[in-house]
């Protein structure tokens, strides 16, 4: 029998995952404490789902190890590998995968039954779990007859009914429409806060990540590229992907005092001073656009060419090429009125300016 003593083995998840799968070479170190919720964020094909599959035991590691609550689930060097059904890991799959031939109650009771509990106990436990997620009324329903939001709740109840020490959620909100998503996201946040094991949420939505998780781990092409609290990551992105995700302009350069020189020529002036290899980041809304060179010459003033215009929420996103350096582009966010007034069109030459105080600078 697997030990469940959380106080003793309360170290959560410690994992070093390495494997090659097709073109993807995965090498990810993960630590998730008990009660902590980590969002695994990354573009499609970065290896997020592969991480979940290895932790669940559905995909063997080629190197490394995974230890949960002090119990080694897998250790390639030591030749240890627990099959999925011997792990204390619960999974909420992307499209929930409720068994279509079982009622909602039997779906939730499946785990306790499979783990050897008597039928009556398993059904009692399933009832309790369904009540906890607010789906007790669905107990006798068939999975195909319930809505996406309801299926999400049932899938969560089913995963929690096995009393896992590690809960894995693969894009738990991706299958829901916008309105349902809002409610379910709030509920899920509450359930994850109540959960005393370690939890990993895979998502490509920064809002889901920020709402649900205590800490973000961003992976790209099989490697961790950035970790931090949601606000750290949102303020100081370290890759183009993260910058785009959180909606910031990101440039890399070399700082000396209040000036950052960019490799393609050009410079960004900053209010804070920084030396050495640094990133600079600023919001698209902090960029002002002029069709003629503005008077008073602001510190950061770049001449570029509009390469794209598209509406974004209530505003308009303008992509400006060749500013502030050759071969790169920045985004500016302006009002629709400004687009009309200035007569902005793709191909037009424009001046873009950013106040030095609106530029965040931080070491690389």
């Amino acid at each position, binding site marked *: 029998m697997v030990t469940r003593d959380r106080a003793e083995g309360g170290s959560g998840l410690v994992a070093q995952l390495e494997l090659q799968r097709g073109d993807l070479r995965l090498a990810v170190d993960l630590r998730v404490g008990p009660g902590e919720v980590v969002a695994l964020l990354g573009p499609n094909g970065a290896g997020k789902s592969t991480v979940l599959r290895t932790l*669940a*035991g*559905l995909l063997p590691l080629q190197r490394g190890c995974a230890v949960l609550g002090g119990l080694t689930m897998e250790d390639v060097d030591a030749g240890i590998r627990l*099959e*999925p*059904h011997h*792990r204390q*890991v*619960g*999974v909420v*799959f992307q499209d929930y*995968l409720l*068994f*279509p*031939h079982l009622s909602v109650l039997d779906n939730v009771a*499946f*785990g306790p039954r*499979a*783990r050897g509990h008597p039928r009556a106990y398993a059904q009692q436990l399933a009832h309790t779990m369904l009540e906890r997620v607010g789906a007790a009324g669905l107990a006798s329903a068939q999975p195909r007859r319930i809505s996406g939001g309801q299926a999400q709740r049932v899938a969560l109840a*089913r*995963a929690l009914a*096995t009393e896992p020490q590690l809960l894995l959620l693969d894009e738990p909100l991706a299958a829901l429409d916008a309105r349902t998503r809002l409610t379910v996201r709030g509920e899920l946040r509450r359930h994850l806060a109540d959960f005393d094991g370690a939890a990993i949420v895979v998502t490509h939505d920064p809002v889901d990540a920020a709402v649900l998780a205590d800490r973000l781990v961003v992976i790209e092409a099989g490697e961790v590229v950035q970790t931090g609290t949601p606000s750290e990551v949102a303020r100081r992105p370290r890759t183009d992907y993260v910058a785009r995700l959180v909606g910031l302009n990101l440039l890399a350069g070399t700082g000396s005092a209040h000036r950052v020189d960019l490799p393609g020529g050009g410079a960004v002036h900053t209010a804070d001073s920084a030396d050495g290899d640094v990133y600079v980041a600023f919001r698209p809304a902090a960029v002002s656009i002029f069709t003629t060179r503005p008077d008073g010459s602001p510190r950061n003033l770049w001449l570029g060419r509009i390469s794209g215009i598209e509406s974004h929420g209530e505003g308009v996103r303008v992509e400006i090429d060749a500013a502030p350096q050759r071969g790169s582009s920045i985004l500016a966010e302006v009002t629709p009125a400004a687009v009309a007034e200035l007569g902005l069109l793709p191909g037009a030459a424009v001046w873009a300016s950013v106040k030095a105080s609106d530029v965040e600078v931080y070491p690389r």
Partner: protein
Amino acid sequence: MPTPIPWLLALPALAGLSFLVLPLLGLLIRAPWSNAWQVITDDEALLALRLSLITATVAMVLAVLLGVPLAWLLARSDLPAMGWLRAVITVPLVLPPVVGGVALFTVLGRSGLLGWPLYQLTGFAFPFTPYAVVLAQTFVALPFLILSVEGALRAADRRYEDAAATLGARPLTIFSRVTLPLIGPGVAAGAVLAWARALGEFGATITFAGNFPGTTRTMPLQVYLALETDPSAALMLSVLLLAVSVLVLVLLRDRWVNRW
């Protein structure tokens, strides 16, 4: 708007349809309905029908018991020899049933490869017993079931099995409580197909099991025999087999007939 049908397709299509339907109509038209009851309740006919229903059902059960695990192996194992295995399994499907009967004889006949030692040890031999009928029917029916179940297994979403594993189910529990229910319709369809194939079995049965009333003379054999002595009885018995086949089709209606 309905698609216009070119004549070049419509004519052969109509001919094909007539070719399939006319013989059945002929059977119904020429059947001696006046003494139908007498023919059907004839002792020999009832004996043959009873033997056919029992052996075909036993053969179907055998096919399910042996075929489902084999289909699982074909669908889920990635052994390199699987391509060859599938080819071997398909052979009985295209083999003339008479050849199948001869082949069974060489192995399980009284002097066969396995039949001889069996006879030496126990004094029992398969040929000319109802067991031989069941073996012959299972031999020809098994591939139908395997292919049907393998298709269902390949079409089934394997992620349900992953989900069951993460919930703590062992491989055998996953098979019985998740995989099997998910492919249930495929197994049922395969079983009905196998049953129908076993019911109609003629060549392998008469070659391997012989033609003894009450023990190995099944309905198809009875029909063939009657055609030589009493053609009108043969007609009526054929109608009876046709009725059984149509009943099978009705059972399968939802699976094939409505799936255009």
